[in-house]
């Protein structure tokens, strides 16, 4: 299954891109996170939340969506 992964804020600087398509299978959001840590080690430097199909979910959640967002600490206002 194809998923789109989007990197927000400074995470886009760590990966060098704002989004990418992945075709690998991951069971959970954490599975995807560990894969991304391997590919982009700098991602380990900032704590981020993960969202699946526009809903922030825990890393143990089953990966069943097609849009995954990595959200660094919020700094609105």
């Amino acid at each position, binding site marked *: 299954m194809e998923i789109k992964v*989007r990197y*927000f*804020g*400074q995470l886009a600087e760590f990966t060098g891109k704002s989004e990418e398509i992945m075709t690998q299978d991951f069971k959970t959001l954490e599975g995807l996170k560990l894969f991304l840590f391997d590919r982009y080690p700098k991602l380990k430097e900032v704590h981020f*939340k993960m*969202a699946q199909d*526009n*809903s*922030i979910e825990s890393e143990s959640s089953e990966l069943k969506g097609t849009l995954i*967002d990595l*959200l*660094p*600490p*919020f*700094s*609105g*206002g």
Partner: protein
Amino acid sequence: MKDRVKNIFIEGPISPIKIGESIAHHQSKTKIGAHALFLGQVRADTVEGKTVEAIEYTAQTEIANQVCHEIREEAFSQYELSCMHIYHSLGVVKKGEICFFVFVSSGHRTPVIDSLNELVNKIKARVPVFGKELFEDQSHQWKVNQ
């Protein structure tokens, strides 16, 4: 009070004219006896000798609007409010300009004063907006909320 998910985002700074008009729109709602407003302004912080010239905001807008909707519903169920407006900038906002506007109204002063601080804190903590502080020499750092 249940309503649809609203878009809180405005491209660029929030103009003082818009804020004035927003107040004026409530003059026909004569059950209102009190308003409270919070305006966030871009501060020219100095970091290691460099001054912030502007903040560039980005957001995960779908989640941001949904979370603001939830925060809005929480406030309406908790406080006796007549209406509430939340606006946040996207894109570049220069130092001294307004980037964040929260406006609550009620029959009396206590609900608006009590709810406003809570609303601002919840929005800052829970809404996925990201501020990139741009310095005069073209370098930048990512804003961290206190």
